Structures are given as structure tokens and as C-alpha cells.
């Protein structure tokens, strides 16, 4: 069984860029292959993305971000459409390390090549063990928080970054993380939290990010960077430190304390009631608004008629159809939908039956409402639903109609 071009209702994300030269393609009454209907996209502030060469660059307000990531570890960067929620980062001097406090007497040399292609980085040098820089992070609300930092290897074999609670018990190590430069291994030294993948940038730079469990917001919480770990001395290059009231990191925010507004993407679809619909997703969670369930893609304009995919909470993945009389959720709990790891999911609506696949493995199936005249495919949302945004990086967010009894048919549309 195969599918025809007319079955392709929407094709969104980095793969659309590779295939069609633009971030979205929506099939509507034909213009003989000409320009398609424009999506609604808003973001009121500048956003940062990773370019194909690994350099951090800015997208002006109102410009969607294509960020180039190697999430599957094959050494090749792929384009992803980045859609993130509003985030306020909490380090007041994310780039000016001369404004940070010190532990010991480290030297800080400005004017170093940075991951933006400029010279805004610092060389941090420890002549004695445990010398570094510190900056307070003014978190709001207790719980799990996340920090990120850009690092480049200097002479130190191991570098260390820590979130330190200077109040609790006279000083508590909430989470210390080491980076071993020879192997690019990230390891927890003390405390608890999640270590995210050491993400390569251009020019030998890496993004280090980790979450910190059990943060008490009213305490004096400090982000500490040590040039060298393991009781040694040495140097490391540093740039761009961020902290957020969230558990999952976001794209870089700098050069000052700032709020980045949400990316909101909605595509106009044709109206119609179809016997079959399928949503295909390939991408990753890159941030959240703090809730467990993160919507990846959703079709529908109101809560009474919608079809969507969500992931990253409990259950790990879920397909969702809210019809005229009932709501059906098909789930898969065995999937590891960790943030910043690429996943493929397929949700099939087939005339009253809902099926959820992880690639070609059927995870769950259930009967659901038959979509009727009350249903309309008015809007396709990527990374948000119910007015709440979720951080996602979409390589594919594809909606297909009709004839999709065989998920293998999707393969024809994949690069």
C-alpha cells in the first residue's frame, strides 16, 4: 500500500526544509505547485539557534528558528524546527564573567573566540585547586531546576560545574558535574539531577546542561564553574551561562537576563471530515513549561475535536483523540522519551480505531469516536496545545489523509 501526494495534508519541520525548501507545506486547493498558504508564526523576541556550522546565531523576532542538531549521534547535523515556550533565564551576567564572584584567585582573560563567532568568551585559569567563578541564580519556587553553560577545552583534563546551596546546612552540593575532555564524558560527582547530553557546537565548544533536584528557592543558590576538577589545575574556556525555573534546558539566552517569548506555530488546513488521518512525528523534546505532558503536535481548533501526540511524562507517549462523545488515549509506557533524544511516533485514526506506533511497533490500540461533521481540520499546531507551549524540535511533523493502513507507507515520504 502506498500513498499519493494529495494525501499529504501537512509537512512541517526540518525535513520540509530539505524537501521543499521551506519549513512547512500545507496541501490545499492547488496553485499548480506554487506558493502554499502561509502559517501563523509569532515570537515577540529574538531567539538563538545553532546554525549548520555549529555557531550560535540570532533569529529576529517573528522569524522561526531552524536549529541544526545531531540528535541521533551519527555525526551529521540535521535541521529541526525549534518551538519553545516562554523562558526567563536567571543569570544576570551570562557572558560577562568579570562580573562574577570568585573562589580562590582564578584568572579570567576576556577576548577569547566564542561559540557565536565573536570574541566574547573567557579563559578561566586555576593556578591552585578548586579555583573558579560563582554567580547567584535567583530561582522561583522549590523543586528541580536546570542550568547550562558553554565550555571549550583548555589545559585542564577535567572541568567541573556545580550548583551550590550556600544556605542549607552551611553549604550543600546540590549537583556537581564533571566533564572529562579526553572522552567528552559527563558524570555526576555529587548531588542529584539529570545530566543532559554534551551537545557539540562549532569551534570546539560544547553545551553542558544538567538539572538539579531539591532546590530551595529562598536559599542562596550559586552556579559555580571550576576550571579544573579532580584536585588539579589548568584552564577552560567559558561562555554563556544560563539558569531556568524548569527541569529541561532551553536554547541559549544572552547576553543579559532576559525573557525569550514563545514560538507559536499554527498551520491552516483544509476543512473536511476524513475516514482516516495519521500524524507522524520525528523529533525531540527540548524544553517544557514545567508540566509532565508535552504536546508534540495537535490538530484541531478547540478542545472538543482534536487529535494529538504528546510525550515525555507519564505515560511516556500518548496519542489522543477527543471526539464528540468521548476521549480516547492510546499509550506506551515502555518508550524512553528522554528530552533531547530523537523519537519517531505515528498516531493513526482509522474510522473509529486509534493506534499508536513507535516507528513500526504497535504500542496500543483502542476504539474511538468516528469523526463526524463536527470535526474540522482547521489548524495544525506544533509544540503547543490548549494555549500552553512546549519545547520541541521537529524534524518531521506530518499529517496524512486516507489509505494509510500500512505504516510502512510513511517510509516513502522520509528522507
Amino acid at each position, binding site marked *: 500500500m502506498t500513498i499519493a501526494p494529495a494525501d*499529504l495534508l501537512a509537512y512541517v519541520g526540518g525535513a520540509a526544509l530539505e524537501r521543499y525548501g521551506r519549513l512547512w507545506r500545507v496541501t490545499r486547493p492547488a496553485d*499548480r505547485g506554487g506558493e502554499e498558504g502561509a502559517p501563523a508564526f509569532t515570537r515577540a523576541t529574538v531567539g538563538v539557534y545553532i546554525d549548520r556550522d555549529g555557531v550560535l546565531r540570532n533569529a529576529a523576532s517573528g522569524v*522561526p528558528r531552524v536549529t541544526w542538531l545531531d540528535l541521533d549521534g551519527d555525526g551529521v547535523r540535521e535541521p529541526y524546527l525549534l518551538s519553545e515556550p516562554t523562558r526567563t533565564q536567571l543569570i544576570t551576567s551570562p557572558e560577562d564573567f568579570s562580573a562574577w564572584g570568585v573562589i580562590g584567585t582564578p584568572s579570567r582573560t576576556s577576548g577569547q573566540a566564542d561559540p557565536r563567532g565573536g570574541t566574547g568568551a573567557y579563559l578561566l585559569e586555576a593556578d591552585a585547586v578548586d579555583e573558579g567563578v560563582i554567580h547567584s541564580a535567583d530561582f522561583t519556587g522549590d523543586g528541580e531546576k536546570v542550568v547550562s553553560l558553554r565550555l571549550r577545552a583548555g589545559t585542564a583534563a577535567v572541568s567541573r560545574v556545580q550548583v551550590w546551596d550556600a544556605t542549607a546546612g552551611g553549604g550543600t552540593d546540590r549537583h556537581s558535574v564533571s566533564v572529562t575532555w579526553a572522552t567528552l564524558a559527563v558524570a555526576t560527582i555529587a548531588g542529584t539531577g539529570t545530566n543532559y547530553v554534551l551537545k557539540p557546537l562549532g569551534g570546539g565548544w560544547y553545551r553542558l546542561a544538567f538539572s538539579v533536584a531539591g532546590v530551595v528557592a529562598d536559599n542562596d543558590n550559586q552556579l559555580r564553574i571550576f576550571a579544573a576538577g579532580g584536585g588539579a589545575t589548568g584552564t577552560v574556556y567559558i561562555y554563556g551561562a544560563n539558569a531556568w525555573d524548569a527541569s529541561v534546558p532551553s536554547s541559549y539566552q544572552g547576553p543579559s537576563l532576559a525573557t525569550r517569548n514563545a514560538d507559536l506555530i499554527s498551520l491552516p488546513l483544509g476543512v473536511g471530515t476524513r475516514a482516516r488521518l495519521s500524524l507522524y512525528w520525528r523529533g525531540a523534546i527540548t524544553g517544557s513549561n514545567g508540566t509532565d505532558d508535552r504536546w508534540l503536535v495537535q490538530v484541531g481548533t478547540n478542545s472538543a475535536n482534536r487529535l494529538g501526540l504528546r510525550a515525555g511524562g507519564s505515560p511516556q507517549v500518548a496519542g489522543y483523540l477527543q471526539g464528540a462523545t468521548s476521549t480516547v488515549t492510546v499509550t506506551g509506557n515502555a518508550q524512553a522519551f528522554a528530552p533531547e533524544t530523537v523519537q519517531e511516533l505515528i498516531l493513526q485514526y482509522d474510522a473509529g480505531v486509534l493506534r499508536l506506533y513507535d516507528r513500526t511497533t504497535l504500542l496500543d490500540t483502542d476504539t474511538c469516536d468516528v469523526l463526524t461533521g463536527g470535526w474540522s481540520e482547521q489548524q495544525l499546531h506544533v509544540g503547543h496545545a490548549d494555549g500552553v507551549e512546549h519545547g520541541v524540535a521537529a524534524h518531521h511533523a506530518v499529517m496524512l489523509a486516507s489509505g494509510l493502513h500500512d505504516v510502512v507507507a510513511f517510509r516513502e515520504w522520509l528522507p
Partner: protein
Amino acid sequence: MSGKPLIAVENLFSVTQFPNVVVLANEAASGNEAFRVATGRRSALNFWTSTTTNQPAWVKAAGDQVRAADFLALDRGHNLAGFAIELHVSNDDFTTYETALAVTLPAATAPGAVDDALGVRTEEGAWLKRFALRAGKQWRLYVPAMGTGLKPQVVGLYLGCSLALEYFDRPFQDDQDELVGATVESDAGWLGRSRSIQRRAHELEVKLPSFAAYDQVRYHLQGHFGKGRPMWLLHDLDQADRAVLVVRAPGTLGFGFTPGWGWRRGKLGYVEHEAQAA
């Protein structure tokens, strides 16, 4: 010979193809405005040039949305052979940008592939280069200072997503032309001719390898080429020096189902666009 063909018809600098694009240059001489880089005209009198010699110059296309490109061509008539150029792409109007391409154009024609590091110069002096896909809202051709008394001159600039086809069905001609000019035969059977040109023309058969392939072919070939827009045709990626700029020939164009092939196929009739006069 790889045998794989490539077509490139999309042009992000064309306000005909993308009406919301704004084309600007750092400066433009009177009668040589920036928009002339993407009019499709091939006359040596139709070009953009700056006004100040020996200083960097640029021409940019500011789009209405993020678009990707992997193909750049400078049509014959440019004066950049042997000089450096850069292609910049940005999402904040060049406050920050990526240099997608930085090359010194070959000074002479030589056999070559469109993926060669320096691109390839065609037999008539155009320059073509395919590069790794980039995406951005603004694109800019940047020409560093060329030297005393010199400034860039660009007749045609083509930037967009190319489409690599699997193959043209054989047999096909990759170098067939027709003689265009007024011919008179005397009563003795002797031929008299006006000034003539050799114009390349042919009808290629394109077989698609899947149902999905039709979607892109429809966009590039029926959506753009079908409307009469100029298209770079490379019969063979590895012999890109023989590339030709073509437009749709009179007649029908379409991709349908025929006996003997499982997916769509169609005929692609073309004639060379404003062939060079001898």
C-alpha cells in the same frame, strides 16, 4: 559520467517567483538596479553593478519567510571570474549571519562537477555551484573589493533549492541544438542566411521513482518551469560545464501514468533561454 541530472529553477531573488521578496543592494548605478539580477534577462546590458569601485559590494534578497537553498548560479556576462565571492545567509538581517559559501570563481572553463569546491564555469561563462543546504530569511551575495577601478557586474543571479533527478530515460540528447536565423534558398539551391545562433533544444523523458517524488517534481517543473521561468538544466552532475539555461518549449507538460512504468512519467520539452549570439 554519473548520469544523474539536476535541475534548478527556484530563485529566491526573483520577485516573480516570490512576490514578497525585496531585493536590495548596498548601492546601484542608475540603470543597473539591484532587481536586474533576477529578471531572467541574459543581455549583457542588463546587470546590477555598484557605483564605487574597489570596495565591498552586496546584493541581498530579504524574504517573507525562512527558505532553504543549495544551488547558486551566476549567469554569463558577470565579471567575477577569478575573483572572490561570498554567499551569506541570515535570520536577523545580517546582524549575525553564516557564510554559506566563500569561493574564488574559476577564471577559465574546464570540465567539472557542480559539487566541485570552486563550482564550475560553463562553456558560455556562467558559474554554477551546489552547496550544503542552508536556511534563512535573508540571503546576500557579497563581493569583496575587487581592486583598483573594479566593481562587480551581475547579469543573472540564481539561488534556490535544486532538485536532483534519478535519471533521464534513454535515449536522450544532452547536446542537441537547432540553428535559429532567417534562411533563404536561391533558385539555384544555394542557401543564404542572416546572422544565426545555435540554440539547444530537446525533449527529455522523466520517469519518477516513487509516488512521493511527484510532489517535488510538480513544484519545480510544473509550478515554476511550467510557468515559463528559466531553469538550469544539468544533464550530468559531473559534467556541469555543459549546463544550459532553458525555458519551457511550446507544447504540453505533465506527469501521468503510461504503460510500462509503475509511477508517473512525463516529457520535458525545452529550448535554450536567450542563447548566446555568435
